[in-house]
């Protein structure tokens, strides 16, 4: 009894769902009006720590007016018991999956309103996708909105991700930097995957690799992603394999253009010819994009910060003006003399 009482007090978070359970039971089985109403109100007040004058919602009155009611308190406590048992089940399932006690407590307190079964279902999908317990905790703490997802949606999405090759542990990195992979619309993921496969002509394996290593591509506009790839392939002469290996797609177009065009105009980068050759070997991509600006200037460009600063301004202006010109040039020009 005392234990149950404690649960009642502790379980104020469970009120909303419990409430509806009580309500359902009450209408079905009937009970004394006054007692039920009183007890229900009392429960609410005690749990939410409010004074006697408060009545949280109109609903209790509605149900109280139903003709048949059972004794509210017993029903309530039975429901509480049921929920507690469920919760215990969930806890033990989680422990079975490999979560520690600490993990379990953390998980249960991420989003207090979540039903334990919902929590378990979501977590199960993640485990089935090959994530380990620790990363699951980290990911859910960072993105609690995942716990609100309908379980069916979660299952469908998981199966789609598996198809994309993102099971078996590849998911961790994606989940950390791009949790939207579960919440975003299916067709948005599909359009990105479509660009990579059909427009850029990456292989299926390469697409998986890209999603795994550069999950931020999921956030990009498909047209801009395609442009980014074309810039790498045609303008810089980088082959598919290297686009994947160097994580090229994760860098912003602005940064890439600034550094590449700077090198090109300095004469330190050359677009390879049809045979893929250049007069002088081009600097490694990691020395262009992955390094800090200071290192880029010192090692790769061999130029000064002030010159690069001026160059960036000039380039931004060039881009702005060429976009303006393209917008103006709506109709094709007539052939001139």
């Amino acid at each position, binding site marked *: 009894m005392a234990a149950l009482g404690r649960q009642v007090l502790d379980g104020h978070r469970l009120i909303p769902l419990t409430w509806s359970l009580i309500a359902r039971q009450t209408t079905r089985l009937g009970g004394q009006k006054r007692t039920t109403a009183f007890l229900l109100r009392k429960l609410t007040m005690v749990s939410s720590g409010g004074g006697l004058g408060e009545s949280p919602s109109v609903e209790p009155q509605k149900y109280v007016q139903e003709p048949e009611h059972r004794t509210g308190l017993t029903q309530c406590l039975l429901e509480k018991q049921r929920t507690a048992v469920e919760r215990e089940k969930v806890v033990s399932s989680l422990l079975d999956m490999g979560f520690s006690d600490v993990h379990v407590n953390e998980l249960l307190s991420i989003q207090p309103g979540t039903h334990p079964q919902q929590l378990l279902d979501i977590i199960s999908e993640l485990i089935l996708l090959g994530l380990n317990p620790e990363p699951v905790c980290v990911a859910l703490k960072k993105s609690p909105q995942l716990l609100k997802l309908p379980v069916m949606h979660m299952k469908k999405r998981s199966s789609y991700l598996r198809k994309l090759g993102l099971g078996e542990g590849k998911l961790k990195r994606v989940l950390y930097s791009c949790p939207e992979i579960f919440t975003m619309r299916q067709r948005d993921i599909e359009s990105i995957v479509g660009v990579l496969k059909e427009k850029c002509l990456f292989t299926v394996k390469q697409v998986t690799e890209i999603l795994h290593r550069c999950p931020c591509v999921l956030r990009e506009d498909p047209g801009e992603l395609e442009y980014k790839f074309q810039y790498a392939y045609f303008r810089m002469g980088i082959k598919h394999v290297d686009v994947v290996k160097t994580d090229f797609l994760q860098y912003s177009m602005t940064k890439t253009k600034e550094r590449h065009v700077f090198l090109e105009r*300095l004469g330190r980068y050359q677009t390879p010819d049809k045979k893929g050759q250049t007069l002088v070997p081009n600097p490694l991509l990691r020395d262009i994009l992955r390094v800090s600006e200071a290192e880029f200037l010192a090692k790769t460009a061999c130029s000064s910060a002030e010159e690069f600063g001026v160059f960036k301004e000039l380039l931004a202006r060039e881009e702005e003006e060429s976009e303006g010109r393209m917008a103006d040039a709506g109709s094709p020009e007539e052939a001139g003399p």
Partner: protein
Amino acid sequence: MTYSVQFGDLWPSIRVSLLSEQKYGALVNNFAAWDRVSAELEQLSARDFVNEAIFHGEPEPKNGQTAAPPPASWACSPNLRCFTFARGDVSRFPPARLGSLGVMDYYLMDAASLLPVLALGLQPGDTVLDLCAAPGGKTLALLQTGCCRNLAANDLSTSRAGRLQKVLHSYVPQDVRDRNRVRVTSWDGRKWGELEGDIYDRVFSLVAEIQAVWILTESWLYHLSAREVWVLVDVPCTTDRHSLHEEENNIFKRSRKKERQMLPMLQMQLLAAGLLATKPGGHVVYSTCSLSHLQNEYVVQGTIELLANQYDIKVHVEDLTHFRKLFMDTFSFFPSCQVGELVIPNLMANFGPMYFCKMCRMT
């Protein structure tokens, strides 16, 4: 690549500047309300680099003694006012407007183009011959000095001479043009020596705008996109944007290789003609917008040798070190010219290229 050999470590920074937007100077039109125009330009945070160089660039006297006045030949041509934005500032000037006096308020040009005019050191009453004068920036500057008793401006190409006429009409009032006996002609500049003889006390010989500015190796041209080549060609022509889009006249097309190689010959002939037309004791400034020492120093040295051997005419090259020091804050100069001075483009000061060499005809 020729230029990387010639310029070594400096070449990449020159190259990136050539391929990026150039910087302009605003030459104030003295025939308009120049004091108001100057004030307006200062409001934009630009400053008159000529004024700053001449009045603040004087070297400090050593040991408290008064500095010796610079020789007369070092004095810069007077009355030139040209505004630029500070180093690293990529602001643009608004387009020039027509003022109340019926002429334009300023002329946008590569500020480095003013240096040969300044170096010439004009004095009131001089007669000036400007060979290859189009598109007209330097010609206009010559008129701004107010020193030209006679100005003959010539360009090989009729269409370019026509453009030069338009510039002069927009900037110089009719009465000034008449007074200065400004004559724009389109004769082959090489024939001047024969026709006019030793009339001109100062000759301003410009061999810049034959469209070919640099001699580049074949392979480099091959890899540059068409747009980049046009930008290169356009840069030296200062405000002559037409050459940017003249694909037919683009001298960097492979089919015009012979023409490019003939250029130094043409340039030597023009310089020789200019020197021959100069009075003994008179001065010639040879300038190009080329980086190539084949077009610059070699032409100067070759012509001087030619005149000495074939005409028994002695020509002395003047040292412009002091002059260069005056303008070092505004422009980047190449440190290793054998004769003359070369302004090299730099992203912080994207003026030039501009080569100039001052000579004095002795005999």
